């Protein structure tokens, strides 16, 4: 586990840029992720936010939870809107009409990132805009009632991949969005989870300084969609990391660094046990998933080791 530094309020700002009064479910890991991200981003930002839980719970007209400039975009174009803002600022600065340099940030859920906003995102990476894209991955389309996305993990029961007599739930493996971001050769890619808050905030601080696109993929535990007691949100996130299901790593200029590693991973079942969406899984399926998680984790470790050896 990450060393939890004592006396937290002395280490991070006590300012809240994501104000309370938002309407996320109690115990929402995505709301916590947004809160921590905003603390790390600070005031000098402009955020473009695709629709999804976080947009809906934070901005029921005439209220807003945002304490920083924030624009709601459509589902499919958060990255395109962010690109436009970044390009606009560049031009205004060149013409001497604007002197500030706010960091441009795009945010979306896993549906808005891995499925619907995917081409806008790929385009923005390819054009090399200087912005941070943050995917809040709660592993389904939660805002509209738990429909599967391409980031839903294998075996999870959702309303459109329901487990039953024949179906084991989601029948495809989770799309590897961070790897796709890496394949665009962008300068910075990282995974994070609010159960490791300092790691998460460090990565945001790092991304702010990157010239060019940065992609941060945050596992955001959703007690409602994962069928999990609300007080176990942090624990579930920790277990996702400790089982190797969601490893925390960074890829800087193509070089992999595993930020949190364990001599031995916990069995994936420890993570599944907590959650109703995996309750139906048989030992056979769990073994199948275990094998895949172990193999992927080993590959990731090797990539990180290669970087260490070369340095």
């Amino acid at each position, binding site marked *: 586990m990450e060393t939890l530094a004592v006396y937290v309020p002395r280490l991070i700002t006590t300012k809240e840029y994501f104000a*309370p009064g938002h*309407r996320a*479910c109690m*115990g929402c890991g995505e709301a916590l992720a947004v809160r921590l991200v905003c603390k790390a981003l600070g005031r000098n930002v402009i955020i473009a936010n695709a629709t999804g839980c976080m947009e809906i*719970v934070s901005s029921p007209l005439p209220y*807003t939870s*945002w304490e920083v400039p924030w624009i709601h975009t459509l589902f499919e174009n958060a990255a395109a809107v962010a690109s436009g803002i970044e390009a606009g600022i560049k031009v205004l600065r060149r013409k001497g009409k604007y002197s500030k340099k706010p960091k441009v940030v795009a945010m979306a859920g896993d549906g808005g990132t891995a499925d619907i906003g995917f081409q806008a995102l790929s385009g923005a990476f390819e054009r090399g805009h200087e912005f941070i894209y943050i995917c809040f991955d709660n592993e389904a389309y939660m805002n509209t009632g738990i429909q599967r996305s391409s980031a839903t993990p294998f075996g999870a029961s959702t309303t459109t991949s329901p487990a039953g007599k024949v179906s084991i739930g989601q029948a495809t493996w989770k799309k590897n969005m961070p790897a796709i971001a890496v394949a665009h050769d962008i300068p910075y890619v990282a995974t994070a989870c609010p159960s490791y808050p300092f790691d998460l905030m460090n990565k945001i601080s790092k991304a702010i300084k990157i010239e060019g696109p940065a992609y941060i993929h945050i596992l955001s535990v959703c007690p409602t969609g994962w069928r999990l007691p609300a007080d176990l949100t942090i624990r579930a996130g920790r277990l996702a990391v400790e089982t190797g299901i969601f490893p925390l790593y960074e890829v800087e200029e193509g070089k992999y660094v595993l930020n949190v590693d364990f001599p031995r991973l916990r069995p994936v079942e420890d993570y599944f046990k907590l959650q109703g969406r995996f309750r139906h899984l048989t030992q056979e399926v769990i073994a199948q998933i275990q094998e895949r998680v172990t193999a992927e984790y080993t590959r990731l470790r090797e990539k990180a080791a290669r970087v260490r050896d070369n340095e």
Partner: protein
Amino acid sequence: MIEIRWHGRGGQGAVTSAELLALAAISEGKFAQAFPSFGPERRGAPVLVFNRVSPNSPIRARVSVAHPDIVIVLDPGLLYITDVTSGLKEDGILVLNTPKSLVEIRSELSGPWRLAVVNATSIAREMIGVPIVNTTMLGALARATRIVELDSLTEPILERFGARARGNVDACRKAYEETETGEPAGIVPKRPKIFEGEELPTWQELLPGCVLTKPGSARQYRTGDWRSERPVWDHQRCIKCGICYLFCPEGCVKQTKEGYFEADLYYCKGCGICARECWTEAIKMVEE
């Protein structure tokens, strides 16, 4: 036509109850509707669900119910945080889940309406094993209002709940037997306001493009009434590390002058994360 408004919390099954009621009414040859009000509120938040039942003519209205004949409240706590009688007709009836007796409730809450009370939480715990009262309250509703026959509810419940149906049917029947009804009298209690301070802007005052110029205005909005448990801090055990502050999804844990922490109950939704994550077990969740 009879109009009904249900008050529950997200996740308590009010939508299911309303649907079952409509199915029961339709099975008796009546016309019926059931639908929730759609908002961004999530699990634990107060929610509204509506029914319309008409004995002999089709129902054309598609809007939410503003002046109900019947109001039914699933969660005892809601009585003190939302205006459940808003718009209730003078000859209407209020059906409450409460551990209190009719006499006690009468002294707290009054108006021209009739009252019906039942301890649905205890019945549901006994018959179903969980404090989910939606089917139990259907029994109370049938008894207090005769809007449908008790027997008409059985079939829809059996169909909806499958293997778990028996307990639900029994709970519904038990509530039918135990519901007390009577006339209210006394003074109307003061209800807390949901919105503090500023009035909501009118549509004329909103800027084009839905531009909001007041950052963080959501701070006015109380989410504390979603809570059924509250965190309580034991200073003896607290080492003032701030972990509870760090992990609160609402950002509503604050440090006091003495360096201890406490929740701002205006926002705390009672998720229990702070209590779960405190390593010295200094925080306990207690029922509201």
